[in-house]
């Protein structure tokens, strides 16, 4: 009976096994049929969805315009033929960082402030890859803006403008003859800074065209440019940041600065003066230069067909009459020539400090090779720096905070290219310590790096004493030829200094009036930093306060390095 039951079970199992085999065969047959019936054919691979997000890098001064336009484009809800949403993602970068990012394939399109960078990018690409094909592909323009000298209306009137044309030479002569005249231009890492520097080299060479490498490197030209650069108060990360600072902190001691025309309109609108423009755009009589804001597709090896399509649609969007009207509204000159600059909605009015019939003439743009020499030589002719890095190493800095700050300090030192710039390092906790004496970077760069590596946290916060020591050192040095500055960073409240805030501020004000002018840039590191104290110190010296945290501190020090 048991045997019978067993043989029956075996028979059922065998039947099930056979059924399984036959089911598999049947399924395979059906699969074959289904494949034959499938419309795409059995041998066609599944289509690969290609990336439809275009990553676009833009220069900082275009922030208000680009954010509005990109938001508008993304809101259109366009899709690619394979059904993916067309999206533009943006990243804000200074042109030099943009070139590095483009070479690394970080984005598929760029819109720097000037075409001048596109040539440099292609040169760098060809050096990097040896390719004859340029990286810069289809390039279009949607907005242009001339470079002007922005002056406060009373300063411009004092120089006879607009009845009397004013030029680069007038500005430079005024800066040399009047020690109280403050002017600045961005560093050569932005088009405005580079073009202002080119204007200086032209003036130094006694030309308005045909600038050669020999002209740039001639000793008389270098001496002229160096003399002019000595009159610069300090440099900075760019015209956009400067305009923001002027809006938030007021006029300060700056009489003139170099920027794009549209920023004059922007400032005057934001400032909202009812008695005429606060700032006036002076179009230099020797000639201006234009920023043409190119939008360029980068022909990177991994550029997808969809990204190319997104670029095309974005170009169409930028060049549409509606978008071009927005370009005008932001104070740029639109590339759509049917839009008049004199129309009723145009901001190109004397009330906003600009003149649409200007500029009358332009300086000649030298070849990329000459431009490169100007950029290289500028580091030797620019106004040099004595800067103290003053760092908080109190107990609250322990851990990630100090590590991030150390990395930021290292970046600061790396970013300052010129070996003749002087940098020193002071730390403060319960006491103040001279970590690395101030010296030219050519001599102490390695010491600084080692000093930064060796910082450790512990003790209280003698912030005011730390600033005082650095300030006194700079006064003792008495070097009026250079920019003298302190970059101080703290994460907490002052609690252990001998000097009071009142005494320190009085000391700075008196010292700056009588002796060497020292600017203090303060970094409030984290939420617990004593912002009011830092603000008082910065204001007394004509400096600035920035907020930072372990995430942003590296970028902040990098930005501050451009001031020197």
């Amino acid at each position, binding site marked *: 009976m048991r045997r*019978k039951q067993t043989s029956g079970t075996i028979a*059922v199992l065998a039947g099930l096994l056979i059924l399984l085999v036959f089911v598999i065969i049947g399924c395979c047959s059906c699969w074959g049929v289904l494949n034959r019936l499938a419309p795409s054919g059995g041998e066609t691979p599944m289509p690969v969805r290609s990336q439809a997000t275009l990553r676009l890098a833009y220069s900082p001064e275009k922030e208000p315009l680009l954010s509005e336009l990109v938001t508008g484009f993304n809101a259109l809800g366009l899709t690619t033929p394979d059904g993916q949403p067309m999206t533009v993602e943006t990243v804000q970068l200074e042109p030099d960082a943009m070139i590095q990012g483009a070479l690394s394939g970080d984005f598929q399109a760029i819109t720097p402030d000037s075409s001048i960078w596109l040539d440099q990018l292609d040169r760098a690409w060809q050096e990097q890859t040896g390719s004859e094909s340029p990286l810069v592909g289809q390039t279009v323009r949607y907005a242009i803006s001339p470079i002007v000298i922005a002056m406060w209306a009373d300063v411009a009137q004092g120089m006879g403008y607009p009845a009397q044309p004013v030029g680069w030479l007038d500005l430079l002569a005024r800066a040399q003859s009047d020690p109280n005249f403050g002017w600045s231009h961005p560093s050569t890492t932005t088009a405005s800074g580079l073009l202002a520097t080119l204007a200086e080299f032209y003036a130094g060479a006694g030309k308005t065209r*045909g600038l050669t490498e020999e002209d740039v490197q001639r000793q008389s030209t270098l001496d002229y440019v160096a003399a002019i650069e000595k009159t610069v108060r300090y440099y900075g990360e760019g015209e956009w940041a400067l305009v923001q600072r002027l809006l938030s902190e007021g006029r300060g001691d700056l009489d003139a600065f170099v920027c794009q025309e549209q920023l004059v309109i922007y400032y005057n609108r934001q400032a909202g003066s009812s008695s005429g423009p606060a700032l006036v755009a002076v179009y230099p009589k020797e000639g201006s230069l234009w920023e043409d804001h190119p939008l360029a597709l980068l022909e990177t090896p991994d550029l997808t067909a969809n990204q190319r399509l997104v670029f095309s649609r974005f170009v169409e969007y930028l060049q549409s009459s509606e978008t071009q009207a927005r370009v005008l509204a932001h104070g740029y000159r639109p590339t759509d020539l049917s839009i008049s600059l004199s129309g009723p909605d145009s901001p190109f009015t004397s009330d906003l400090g600009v003149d649409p*019939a*200007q500029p009358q003439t*332009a300086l000649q743009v030298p070849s990329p090779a000459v431009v490169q020499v100007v950029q290289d030589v500028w580091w030797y002719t620019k106004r040099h720096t004595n800067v103290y890095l003053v760092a908080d190493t109190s107990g609250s800095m322990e851990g990630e905070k100090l590590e991030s700050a150390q990395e930021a300090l290292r970046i600061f030192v790396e970013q300052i290219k010129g070996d003749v710039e002087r940098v020193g390092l002071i730390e403060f906790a319960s006491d103040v310590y001279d970590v690395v004496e101030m010296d030219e970077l050519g001599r102490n760069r390695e010491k600084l790096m080692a000093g930064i590596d060796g910082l450790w946290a512990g003790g209280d916060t003698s912030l005011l004493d730390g600033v005082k020591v650095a300030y006194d050192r700079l006064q003792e040095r008495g070097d009026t030829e250079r920019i003298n500055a302190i970059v101080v960073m703290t994460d907490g409240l002052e609690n252990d200094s001998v000097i009071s805030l009142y005494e320190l501020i009085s000391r700075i004000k008196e010292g700056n009036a009588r002796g060497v002018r020292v600017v203090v840039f303060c970094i409030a590191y984290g939420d617990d930093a004593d912002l009011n104290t830092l603000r008082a110190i910065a204001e007394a010296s004509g400096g600035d306060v920035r907020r930072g945290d372990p995430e942003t501190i590296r970028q902040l020090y990098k930005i501050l390095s451009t001031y020197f």
Partner: protein
Amino acid sequence: MTMDRTRLTFFVIIGVAVLVVVCGVGISLLPRITGSLGLSPMPTPAPAAETLEVRVVCALPVEPWVTEAAKQFNAEGHTLEGHPIHVEIVPMDGLTAKGRYERGEFGTEGSPYPTAWIPDSRYLVELVNATYKDLRGRDVFLTDGEYRARPIAVSLFAWGIYATREKVLREKYGEIDWHAIHDAATAKGGWPELGGNLEWGYFKLVVPNPNKNVGGLAAMVAAAGEYYDKNIIGVEDVMDPAFQAWLGELMGAVTDFSSLGAYSVENLALFGYSMGDGGQLLESDLLVNMQGIQTRWADPLVIVYPQYVTWFDFPFTVWMGPETTAQEKNAALEFEKYLLSPEVQQQALKRGLRPANPDVPLDGPDSLFVKWQSQGAKVVVPRATAMRSPDRDVLDALLKWFDRNVAQR
């Protein structure tokens, strides 16, 4: 009984299994069986006729017109032998396209091989043919027969100068030609020396960068023609040190040869007299930008025709290599016919181009030549001498001279 039930279960399972297999195999063999029996196969949806893609690399001066025409062509649903035709236009300067053909850079992933090319001038076609004759032993673009290169429009080179500046030059020199422009360009005192305003600075010449815009090369050829007072120039003319010095002085008056240099007339319009007082540029570009210049700048532009005339003929040229199919080549010809139709040629006229189809008159109602007669535009150009297309060696010599002496200045 138990034994019987087990057997029954076993046979039921076997039966089901056999049924599944028979059905599966039967379905899979059905098309073959019905086919062999001459019966109609199982009805399947009829495959859509494959679209013929025509990819046209197009010179920049005619690109807006050709792109517009391609949109209309695609919208009208043209077909060839039952296949729909779709045309895609790829804007590219003639010299850039020539370089890509010669370096074999077309046909990469995401960028299919162009079916046809509309360069600025016939001589670019000849240059690419010469390269491929060395590589493949035959022409890749034909010069006769059905697939030969045919001009789709023509545009001359003419002087475009801001009116205030043109007046001063006329008073100073009488005629405006390359000699007068050279003297103006080299005037050490700038515009005041020529009789113009101090604030105009130096005379600023507009010449496109020949490495980025073939119009720059055409300007140098035209300048050489007037320098030597003849309509054909050779390598020995380009190599003459006296000519090179003269041309170098002329090029020294160009404000910008950087990336901006690719756009020429657009620059003249956008940046106005600040970047250029004038230059010898493509007539169609001048006509198209005339209105914009008057809107943007108070000073209008004036057109002056030179004695030695150069021009672009924008030949539609079908690629004869195996990278595209015969049907695609024929589809390209369909688009070419469309471009030459009177209606589409009329659109070219609206963009300042001289139609290649002789049935379309230049003085029609939408003609920019008529609209801008007051600014010097002419339907018929008088007493002109046509410059002959220079050969490859002359063009190479001019480009090399430019690279060594101007691009590196």
